[in-house]
């Protein structure tokens, strides 16, 4: 029975090929654009997620408070309020996986005849762990290098390219503030952060070395920044509260006195970026859905024409014993076939379009099984929904009226 009806639907579709093709085109464009837009939207979300995870996940940045001298306020990080011991104390807290003290600033780097200005980061090995940063070549320095203030450096890809060009930097010496540093490793590429700043334009040296040889500080042991990584996103609120309480206690701040440090949460910036792209992809999907809807209405339109055109045929079928549900099923099946066929073609074109976009623009594209499945289910749903009204109209025809129809 079903096979016979499928055959009939196929017949009916073949009877007016151009019209069937045009009806299908509505679905093709609808489904195709939904798939393409979802691929682009999810690609954007993926790209943002990548950027966020490249900055390190679940991170807090503690910045020492500003100082003022002679009415001139220094801005965050200028004061000596945070120190390495604070970091060690924070590392003992529950839910904290890594704490890295950071002292950073821009410096001119020199290697042979090349020179390049880059961000020099003085820190401990925990910094690399917190930011999930791996080495492309060579090896990272250890805690012993920090203790004995050795002059070793890890350089980012951009720095390496600018100072060394094609040369292998590992084992070479660079000069920072006249001090020679041995390059022991090159960091893996990370790309831009959310601000668009190049994270690979950097040099990482032991904190102690940076403070003594590069920046010089009147308060050895104090740091501008502490990077704190929580073990999970869920642990972050508790870690933040504990951290603040601990620091207030350590800094002997009384009730009502302001913190002498700032707490920044990278998650907030990350959430904003993720939310923006999510809204954008929902918007894209919504716009594409409108064209899917229009495609569905196209199907209804054609099915209504088809019912009117074939009224006499419906009458004949009823006269030889077709039940209302047979007629209903016939037209519903036809609508469903058109939409499913249109959906398959649309799916193929949408995916091809997404791949093409990726090839031409280098935009990140994510085609998920879920989005394909959703597009398919929606198309089938539209076929049934918009096919139902014309089909019911056909089924409700009075046999004798239908037979008299010319």
């Amino acid at each position: 029975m079903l096979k016979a009806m499928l055959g009939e639907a196929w017949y009916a579709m073949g009877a007016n090929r151009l019209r069937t093709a045009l009806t299908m085109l509505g679905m093709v464009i609808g489904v195709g654009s939904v798939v393409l837009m979802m691929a682009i939207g999810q690609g954007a979300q993926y790209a943002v997620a990548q950027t966020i995870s490249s900055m390190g996940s679940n991170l807090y940045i503690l910045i020492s408070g500003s100082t003022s001298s002679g009415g001139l306020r220094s801005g965050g990080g200028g004061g000596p309020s945070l120190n390495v011991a604070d970091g060690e104390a924070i590392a003992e807290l529950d839910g904290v996986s890594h704490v890295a003290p950071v002292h950073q600033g821009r410096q001119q780097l020199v290697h042979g005849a090349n020179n390049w200005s880059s961000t020099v980061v003085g820190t401990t090995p925990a910094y690399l762990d917190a930011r999930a940063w791996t080495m492309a070549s060579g090896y990272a320095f250890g805690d012993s290098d920090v203790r004995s203030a050795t002059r070793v450096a890890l350089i980012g890809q951009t720095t390496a390219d600018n100072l060394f060009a094609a040369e292998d930097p590992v084992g070479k010496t660079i000069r920072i503030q006249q001090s020679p540093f041995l390059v022991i490793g090159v960091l893996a590429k990370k790309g831009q952060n959310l601000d668009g700043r190049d994270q690979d334009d950097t040099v990482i040296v032991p904190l102690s070395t940076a403070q003594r040889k590069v920046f010089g500080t009147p308060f050895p042991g104090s740091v501008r920044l502490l990077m704190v990584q929580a073990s999970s996103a869920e642990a972050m609120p508790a870690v933040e509260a504990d951290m603040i309480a601990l620091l207030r206690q350590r800094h002997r701040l009384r009730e009502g006195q302001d913190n002498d440090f700032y707490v920044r949460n990278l998650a907030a910036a990350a959430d904003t970026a993720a939310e923006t792209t999510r809204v954008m992809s929902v918007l894209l999907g919504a716009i594409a859905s409108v064209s899917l809807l229009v495609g569905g209405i196209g199907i209804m339109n054609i099915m209504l024409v088809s019912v009117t055109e074939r009224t006499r045929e419906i009458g004949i079928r009823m006269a030889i014993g077709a039940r209302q549900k047979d007629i209903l099923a016939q037209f519903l099946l036809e609508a469903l076939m058109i939409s499913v066929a249109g959906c398959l073609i649309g799916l193929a074109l949408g995916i091809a379009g997404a791949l093409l976009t990726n090839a031409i623009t280098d935009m990140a594209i994510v085609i998920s099984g879920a989005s394909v499945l959703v597009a398919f289910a929606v198309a089938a749903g539209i076929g049934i929904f918009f096919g139902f009204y014309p089909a019911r109209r056909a089924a409700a025809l009075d046999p004798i009226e239908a037979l008299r129809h010319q």
Partner: protein
Amino acid sequence: MSQPLIRVAALGKSYRTAAAPFPALRGVDLSIDAGEFVAIMGHSGSGKSTFMNLLGCLDTASSGDYFLAGRKVADLDQEQLAALRNQTIGFVFQGFNLLQRMSLEDNVALPLVYAGRGLAREQRRQSARQELARVGLASYASSLPSRISGGQQQRVAIARALVNSPQLLLADEPTGNLDSHTSEEIMKLFSQLNGEGITIVLVTHEPDIAAWARRQVCFLDGLIVSDVATPPRALA
């Protein structure tokens, strides 16, 4: 036979028109036994086609009762009516009413699709070819309706009406679109089928067509004005 195959009592049908309801049938009483061959005659507008459509369960009466094989048709729902049209009645139209885009065997097999017996496509075509052979068109099974003559199309329509082995064959002006020679062939076929035990009721306004039947019922202005038996006609 204890009860007639068809029994109508005070059957009335009026059509709604702009001015006033137009009564096409004004209380018809008639019984037809199984195995009869009845010609319904009358001028156009006499109500004979309306009557036929009511007999074929294609239309519903405005008043009166219609019993088909002992069942009161007015009490049946859409599904049961469809089953009657499918199983009990075979309907032949003046305009043949074949589906043009289907082969002849598929046209004939169509009632089997709706019979819901779960026959496979090949079994249905097999039965269709048997019916086509019965009306002498076995060799055209896979042709399209547009390829054959009107007389042949009407034979196919008859084959389609017979494929579910109905008790009753209704024919509304079956020869109206055919020349006299082909008409005669169709009528020979009807006589032959009647001889095999199928009850036939046909509508015509031509006396020489009606002469093939064994009973002639004449309609005028929605009423039966005469109902006479006619002598059997020798098959030439």
